[in-house]
């Protein structure tokens, strides 16, 4: 087999998962080695194709096998390596590989060590399948596989009730989104089918060409529905787009399907870093970029995407300001940043979104790994019991600070470039997005981001230790945890144009930007942009410093002053309560109705009714079975007589 084949990227992690599950469960070291080797090899193979992408080729490699052919439908399983998937390959394999190494330290001594790495490999296979997929159906299969492996990893500590519940919640919430996703796929597939003859079912490139061609809807309608389609081009596309977007809302945890992500923090911290910060939740953003041809012709769809993203960004940022669980703050921060990316997609900035996805993967993974190191050291998630840890674990602490600055968009760190790219989009939005949500809230969100991240850093690493027992036992993380963090730290600093250079960035733009969308105007390092970025950071960080660093403002008094507003935010806008209420009062009642219908109509009337009728008829007729031969003879005579009477 060709050692540069992208099939290897896909199959090595799968092979690793199978081998660990079947053969090496007994040996933790070997299992971890196999898993890391698989990711590393995948990364090397992927990196081998990087030069071609950087030279600006739109499609580098594509191949497929026919997976299923039935009734005129031909489903393919293949790969498509272009600029977009290359960005994701680098992020998934690179960041994923580092997190694998980190996990050998974090999970050390865990009884489920080998199982953990088997699940991680399965996840890598699923995720890489999404990245490399060349058609809708393959991406859907891997979409679900990612859901399964995420379920396994969130519920890794399955003996804990909260972890088991969280994994169920994540899976079920995703099912809601995936249902819409599936409907969207089917709509798009059947509409474009006559125009994509010869290509596999749901092939991205064929569909993009079909939807891009003039009058495609008329052609599709004539051959599918005999001209009886009621939906016009515009309505069809936005409905299909919105349905497909439901899948994105599930995986990328956009409001109102965001509820699973904070709970998913029940999983081990490397899982939070890999799946719920760097890769899986980015799958939704990646999908939007991959199928942007669906959204591009429809302003309605783009409006929905932009506003859902903008709202999620703000909504999650407000909640993050009130949380006391270190991982939950980061989880809500992730929600908020994903909102930014989705909003950027809605504003037509696919390259801005993908750029932010990449830098966010670096610094958010670092933040989670840092949080993991802290949790590893003090054995609690509650930042109220931390404080002053920078003296005990300086390396982790300062790297955490750098990642925080990157997340807050302080120049010249990586986050500054990508975030200001998105903020720039919101300052010059397209016609359909001249709304408060898109033009004002993202800037406000950036201020909130600086506030809650500074608060988190101050409460965790600075000030006086609030729990001396935990503080005394804190220690710096081992080398196999610090090293991956150091690599991510370097990437968080130089992940912008400092690493890639202005020319490379141009290529990056060219390959991830669909035809017809505006060029992203990347921030130049001029004085005004830097001043604005620092102003945003300064406002948020200053407020946090006054409250939690210098103690000029008493947070408790602010809480009391805000009263109901604080309660509302602290309870996460009562979304979970709303869902609980809906389940209890709406869904339960509907279920009772269905149950009653089933009990009385289906079972009572039809099933048991037919049985009773048969039994009663049998009981009546059985009376004739007297056992007396002479009675039978008499009946026989009567029968014959009756027949004769009828015939004569």
């Amino acid at each position: 087999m060709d050692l540069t084949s992208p099939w290897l990227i896909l199959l090595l992690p799968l092979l690793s998962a199978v081998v660990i599950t079947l053969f090496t469960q007994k040996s933790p070291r070997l299992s971890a080695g196999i898993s890391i080797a698989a990711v590393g090899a995948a990364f090397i193979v992927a990196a081998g194709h990087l030069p071609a992408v950087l030279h600006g080729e739109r499609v580098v490699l594509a191949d497929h096998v026919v997976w299923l052919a039935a009734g005129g439908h031909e489903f393919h399983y293949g790969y498509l390596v272009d600029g977009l998937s290359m960005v994701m390959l680098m992020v998934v394999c690179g960041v994923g590989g580092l997190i694998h190494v980190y996990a050998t330290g974090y999970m050390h001594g865990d009884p489920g060590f080998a199982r953990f790495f088997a699940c991680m490999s399965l996840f890598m296979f699923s995720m890489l399948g999404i990245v490399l997929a060349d058609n809708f159906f393959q991406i859907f299969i891997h979409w679900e596989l990612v859901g399964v492996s995420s379920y396994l990893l969130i519920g890794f500590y399955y003996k804990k009730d909260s972890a088991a519940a969280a994994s169920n919640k994540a899976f079920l919430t995703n099912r809601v989104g995936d249902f819409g996703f599936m409907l969207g796929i089917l709509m798009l597939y059947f509409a474009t089918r006559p125009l994509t003859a010869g290509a596999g079912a749901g092939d991205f490139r064929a569909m993009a060409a079909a939807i891009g061609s003039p009058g495609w809807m008329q052609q599709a309608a004539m051959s599918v529905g005999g001209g009886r389609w009621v939906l016009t081009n515009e309505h069809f596309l936005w409905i299909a787009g919105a349905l497909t977007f439901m899948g994105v809302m599930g995986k990328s945890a956009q409001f109102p399907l965001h509820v699973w992500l904070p709970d998913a923090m029940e999983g081990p911290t490397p899982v939070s870093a890999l799946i719920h910060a760097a890769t899986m939740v980015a799958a939704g953003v990646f999908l939007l970029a991959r199928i942007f041809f669906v959204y591009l012709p429809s302003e309605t769809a783009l409006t929905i995407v932009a506003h859902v993203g903008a709202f999620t960004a703000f909504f999650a940022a407000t909640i993050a300001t009130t949380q006391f669980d270190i991982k939950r703050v980061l989880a809500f921060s992730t929600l908020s940043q994903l909102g930014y990316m989705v909003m950027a997609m809605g504003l037509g900035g696919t390259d801005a979104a993908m750029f932010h996805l990449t830098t966010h993967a670096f610094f958010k993974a670092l933040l989670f790994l840092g949080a993991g190191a802290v949790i590893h050291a003090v054995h609690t998630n509650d930042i109220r019991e931390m404080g002053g840890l920078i003296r005990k674990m300086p390396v982790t602490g300062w790297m955490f600070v750098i990642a925080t600055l990157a997340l807050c968009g302080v120049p010249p760190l990586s986050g500054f470039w990508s975030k200001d790219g998105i903020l720039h989009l919101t300052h010059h939005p397209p016609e359909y997005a001249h709304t408060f949500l898109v033009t004002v809230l993202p800037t406000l969100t950036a201020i909130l981001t600086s506030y809650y991240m500074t608060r988190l850093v101050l409460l965790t690493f600075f000030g006086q230790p609030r729990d001396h027992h935990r503080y005394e036992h804190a220690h710096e993380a081992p080398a196999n945890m610090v090293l991956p963090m150091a690599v991510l730290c370097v990437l968080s600093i130089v992940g912008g144009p400092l690493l890639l250079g202005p020319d490379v960035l141009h290529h990056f733009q060219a390959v991830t930007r669909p035809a017809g969308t505006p060029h992203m105007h990347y921030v130049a390092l001029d004085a005004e942009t830097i001043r604005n970025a620092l102003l945003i950071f300064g406002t948020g960080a200053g407020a946090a410093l006054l409250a939690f660093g210098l103690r000029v403002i008493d947070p408790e008094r602010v809480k009391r002053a805000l009263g109901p507003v604080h309660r509302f935010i602290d309870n996460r806008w009562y979304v979970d309560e709303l869902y609980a209420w809906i389940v209890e009062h709406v869904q339960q009642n509907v279920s009772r109705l269905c149950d009653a219908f089933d009990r009385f109509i289906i079972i009572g009337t039809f099933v048991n009714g037919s049985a009773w009728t048969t039994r009663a008829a049998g009981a009546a007729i059985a009376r004739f079975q007297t056992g007396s031969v002479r009675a039978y003879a008499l009946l026989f005579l009567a029968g014959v007589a009756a027949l004769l009477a009828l015939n004569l």
Partner: protein
Amino acid sequence: MIGLQHWLMLSGMVFTLGLCGVMMRRNIILVMMSIEIMLNAANLALVAFNKHLVAAPGAAVPPDGQVLVFFTIAVAAAEVSVALVIAMLLFRRLDTVNVDDVANLRW
């Protein structure tokens, strides 16, 4: 002159005699004999019909009725042999030939 209707009346009377025997008798042997009587009544009717059959001009009268009687007799003989075995086993098992005592196959 004895015509068809006389034969049929005789046949009807014999049949009714057999029927009454089947309905009224309790001894299984007698019930079976009554059934045989009913069969013979039918045979008598068949022979009588054949005798008075009017053939097509110039053709011999086909002996269908007579032949059918032979079949009936053969089948009746076979039936009686089975029935007698049943009666014999019944007597051995239950020590009775009264059909009213044999009413186990019922609801």
